[in-house]
């Protein structure tokens, strides 16, 4: 790696002040796992890194509001989500997802805010958060704003964050009887990055699907909601006929890219199959982590 300067401010505000929006070679580092990969590969050679480590504790932690909304500090390591009773109670799909998300060491270091800002389309958490209707609370030079996760992610490694904006918190709304599932589909080894990720959150009234959120990732350049497929599902009982339509619509709707993990046509077939499996898994989700 090329040498760089490192500054370690003591507050969020100080950090934002240190960002130089016109200099892309100055960058904020949170857990650092993703950024280290870029630096080691030599594709990113920063002049200066601004570490958030010194005040990480003030920005980490998981709380649940009385209504059941989860509020997760941006610097919370993924492993904390994995072991949190709040997450286990209000968003057990996250705990289930964690088991096969990267590995223990990365989960110990990578933060939820850093992971979202990295915006790698292969990551498992973004589609799950989109399906859960999560949003991020962003702080920057222009003040505070809230962005739904589905709007935060704009492309491969690209986000809607302004250069001097940082994610401060992730909010996951109250579940309201929602059922969720995430399917990670690998085509290489079991611990490979997914060729396809698909997350589903449903609210059912009796046997009828009241609302649905479906998000696809990995096969697309960003984690993306499949709104047409959602519409097809809502109001149905998720019967075989409906699910076949949902599968076809999802396969049509998603903008799928080929890569080393599969051709676009194959990944489209995977999506067709797994959107059904994910909906069925969500219908049966017990709420256990």
């Amino acid at each position, binding site marked *: 790696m090329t040498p760089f300067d490192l500054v370690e401010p003591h507050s969020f505000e100080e950090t934002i002040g240190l960002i130089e929006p016109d200099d892309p070679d100055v960058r904020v580092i949170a857990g650092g796992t993703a950024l280290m990969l870029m*630096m080691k590969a030599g594709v990113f050679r920063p002049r200066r890194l601004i570490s958030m480590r010194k005040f990480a504790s003030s920005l980490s932690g998981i709380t649940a509001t009385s209504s059941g909304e989860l509020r997760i500090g941006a610097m919370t390591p993924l492993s904390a989500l994995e072991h949190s009773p709040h997450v286990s109670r209000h968003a057990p799909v996250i705990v289930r997802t964690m088991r096969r998300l990267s590995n*223990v*060491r*990365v989960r110990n270091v990578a933060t939820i805010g850093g992971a979202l800002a990295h915006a790698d389309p292969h990551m498992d958490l973004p589609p799950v958060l989109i399906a859960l209707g999560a949003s991020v609370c962003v702080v920057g030079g222009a003040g505070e704003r809230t962005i739904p996760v589905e709007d935060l992610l704009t492309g491969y490694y690209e986000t809607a964050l302004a250069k001097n904006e940082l994610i401060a918190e992730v909010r996951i709304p109250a579940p309201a009887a929602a059922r969720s599932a995430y399917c990670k589909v690998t085509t290489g080894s*079991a611990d490979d990055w997914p060729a396809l990720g698909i997350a589903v959150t449903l609210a059912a009234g009796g046997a009828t699907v009241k609302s649905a959120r479906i998000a696809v990732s990995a096969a697309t350049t960003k984690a993306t909601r499949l709104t047409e497929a959602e519409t097809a599902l809502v109001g149905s009982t998720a019967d075989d006929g409906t699910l076949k339509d949902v599968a076809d619509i999802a396969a049509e709707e998603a903008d799928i890219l080929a890569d080393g993990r599969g051709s676009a046509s194959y990944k489209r077939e995977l999506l067709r199959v797994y959107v059904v499996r994910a909906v069925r898994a969500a219908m049966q989700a017990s709420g256990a982590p």
Partner: protein
Amino acid sequence: MSGGARTINLTLNGRPVSAEVKPHHNVVEMLQTQFGLFGARESCGQGLCGCCTVLVDGQPVSGCLCLAVFLDGADVVTIEHLSETGKLDPVQQAFVECGAFQCGYCTPGFVLMTKALLRQNPDPDDEQIRDYLAGNLCRCAAYPEIINAVRMAARETKAGSTG
């Protein structure tokens, strides 16, 4: 000045130490060049193989992806600590008994991961063992023997703590 060295203080294998590190140095480099500890070693360089595993404040971390400066104030344990008394740790002993390695390059990582797993979950089932160790790779593929070793270590650790 850009990239200048700085002094960090940490607890390394139970002893307070300080180290001169530059911001771009990772933990593996620091351990090797400043402390002569070679048990954590860089292989894939991407946090995927686990050869560089160290325990930071009790939690396993990929040393190749962690900047050394971030260890300022941390409690760090490397593989060398486990047999510092001259006696193998029960996890190490179980790896020997089960023949849970061939070339040995990945072994320190697997041993430290097992150590962390058993601290968190003293009685893991096979699926929990696999999940926890799925991020460590062994090209000699001694995986079946490693699972046996973790089971044995769990038994021995429990026996050791209760009796």
